[in-house]
């Protein structure tokens, strides 16, 4: 039993913190966001140079074969400085999905690792909530063995700038059957694929996909992808948990600093007991979230039922804690907390989005119950 980073992981965490501090300084955030494309490109290039884009990719595929704890070390820094790039989708989720792919998948992984391509995963559909087994996108196999996809994907997390999409599609069974779900790889510019792009309140860029007879490459075995998809999404969730913890940590530190320095009625507002107690509740929420982030990340290797239970419990609770810390950080800052110029409101906006990404607290509470 040990909750310490190794020396290498500590270096990784420090370097993630430094990158965030250098490229995404909170004092200039609004101004920097005016040139979002340039900032994102510069960040991505540095991440490639540091090897982070190939960190979670298996060594067999030319990656570094980093562990979930390595990813956690990177993500805390991303959260602390609200680095809004599609790292989790492209470097964590997609590589976990493409592990069993063929030649094209290997090429895509190579391109992701060196930073020349981005990828995202389309897993959610209308009327299915966050249920990964609710797959209606139809996959038809021609007599020549070629697969074509028709239907839609409601939301692709961080898919706004993707060059490739990995999507689940139904090759057999009914709309929510576990059997009959297959995984496919498609180019963003494939004929018949329509990509609608959206920016969220936290600057992350997402997509909604429409398919009419899009040719796609099957990844792994047909009909049997759901278990792998679930595991890959659990890995993405754990990366997000670490990001949430980093963001909560920064929001709390900023709030404590403000409580110590802001004066009203002739005294520091941190001398008021009601504000002190609120800050303590924020600190406890952070402590809970950090504990669960560690626990979930260290549970990724457990058998599926136990892994699901721990990851969903953690996702649900960290979401609640993150929203609490974000909202109270805004509240304790008063008027300036509401302003967009201070980074505090950006932390709340990121927490709101993290709470729902890959399943809301409500969804994961239900998954936790089902896993018991």
């Amino acid at each position, binding site marked *: 039993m*040990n*909750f310490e980073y190794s020396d290498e992981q500590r270096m990784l965490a420090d370097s993630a913190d430094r990158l965030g501090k250098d490229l995404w300084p909170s004092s200039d955030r609004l101004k920097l966001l005016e040139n979002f494309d340039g900032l994102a490109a510069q960040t991505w290039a540095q991440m490639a140079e540091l090897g982070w884009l190939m960190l979670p990719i298996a060594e067999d595929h030319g990656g570094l074969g980093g562990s979930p704890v390595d990813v956690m070390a990177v993500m805390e820094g991303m959260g602390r400085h609200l680095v809004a790039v599609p790292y989790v989708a492209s470097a964590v989720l997609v590589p976990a999905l493409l592990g069993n792919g063929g030649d094209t998948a290997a090429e895509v992984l190579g391109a992701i690792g060196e930073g020349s391509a981005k990828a995202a995963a389309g897993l959610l559909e209308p009327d299915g909530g966050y249920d990964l087994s609710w797959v209606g996108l139809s996959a038809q196999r021609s007599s020549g063995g070629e697969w074509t996809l028709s239907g839609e994907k409601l939301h692709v997390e961080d898919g706004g700038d993707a060059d490739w999409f990995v999507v689940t599609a139904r090759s057999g069974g009914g709309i929510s059957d576990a059997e009959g779900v297959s995984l496919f790889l498609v180019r963003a510019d494939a004929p018949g694929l329509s990509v609608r792009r959206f920016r969220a309140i936290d600057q992350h860029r997402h997509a909604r996909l429409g398919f009419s007879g899009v040719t796609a490459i099957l990844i792994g075995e047909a009909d049997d992808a759901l278990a792998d998809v679930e595991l890959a999404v659990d890995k993405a969730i754990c990366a997000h948990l670490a990001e949430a913890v980093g963001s909560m940590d920064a929001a709390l530190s900023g709030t404590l600093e403000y409580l110590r320095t802001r004066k009203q009625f002739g005294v520091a507002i941190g001398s008021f*007991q009601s504000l002190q*107690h609120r800050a303590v509740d924020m600190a406890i929420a952070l402590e809970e979230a950090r504990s*669960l982030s*560690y626990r979930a990340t260290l549970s990724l290797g457990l058998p599926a039922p136990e892994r699901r239970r721990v990851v969903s419990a*953690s996702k649900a609770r960290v979401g609640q804690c993150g929203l609490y810390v974000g909202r109270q950080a805004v509240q304790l800052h008063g008027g300036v907390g509401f302003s967009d110029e201070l980074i505090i409101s950006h932390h709340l906006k990121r927490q709101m989005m993290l709470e729902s990404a890959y399943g809301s607290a409500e969804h994961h*509470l239900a998954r936790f119950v089902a896993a018991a």
Partner: protein
Amino acid sequence: MDLEFTPAELAFREEVRAFFAENVPAEWLTRVRAGLRLEPQELIAYQKALAARGWGAPTWPVEYGGPGWSPAQNYIFESESARAGAPIQFHQGLELIGPIIFTYGSQELKDRYLPGIINADDWWCQGYSEPGAGSDLASLRTTAVRDGDHYVLNGQKMWTSYAQVASHMFVLARTSQEPKRQQGISLLLVDMTTPGIAIRKIETMDEKYTTNEVFLDDVRVPVGNLVGEEGRGWEYGKVLLDRERMVCSATAIHLPQVLDGVREAAAARKVRGVPLIETPAFAAQLAQLEIEAMALETMVLRLLADLASGADSGPRGSMVKLRWSDLYQRATALWIDAHGPEAAHFRALDGEGPADMPYAMQGALYSRVTSIYGGSSEIQHNIIARRALGL
């Protein structure tokens, strides 16, 4: 980072599991699950069984009779104890006065009192709070005046749990008036058979006899029973601040027992023909408590890992106490919900009542005091704000 136990720790777990399988009577379960203390004679028997095995004082240093366990072993011991439905050891001697005696007491006091705590030959109660000194303990007014070879105690103590069965009491009393209220307070060990001690039961809302007022009227205590130096008793409490992490951790590790009780009650009860535990609204409430309990358990694991590595864990003991008392209160409240209309059947007026019910309700009532005793939740917030957040 890893969550694994070593092979030696796994072997230790088997050993502990076997002990609990033999030494925990089934009839304790309903009360233990409700978070209620067993009767003193039951706790004494349990403590004697642990002592016979060499495990009477799990967190004490070896030289004073502890087993020399690592924090991981302590975690395993407590979690197996919780799994087996064993109670938490009675803590007033083991955790509240024992550590002060072995840290600050004379050799004579150590020799005289430490074995009795481990073997349960002595039962200790705590004479700290007074009618006008609760959370603000430093305002205590009980006096100890030196008269030859004795201190003469006069005053009134309040909320003295188990004074009615205790053989000894540790008392904070004022030995001199000093400008700073925390100074001039001394810690004395008092034999409860000493003339001048009167005990009056305090009725509490859980209808369980636990606590008392204790009146001290010219109670003569030998000067040899002064712990450490005269006037410095307040400082000795500090050793407990560090140790309370262990106490809080132990209670928190036992929280799943309560949730087991809730789950069992909700599985047994049907609402419109469906087991309550399968109804979405109830299942969601229970799941919420279970995930918060998982967070708390992980906080405890981190706390213990920090202790093992010698890292300062700050006021995380206070955080654990806050989270635990909140969850215990909510869990017992949900347990009451699970009993539906039968929750109103607290005591049978004729013959035997429905099994379990009085204990779940008593637990729910008792739980209200857990956010008040041992430093109220508001005091815990103050401690964390000051010690951890620098406010």
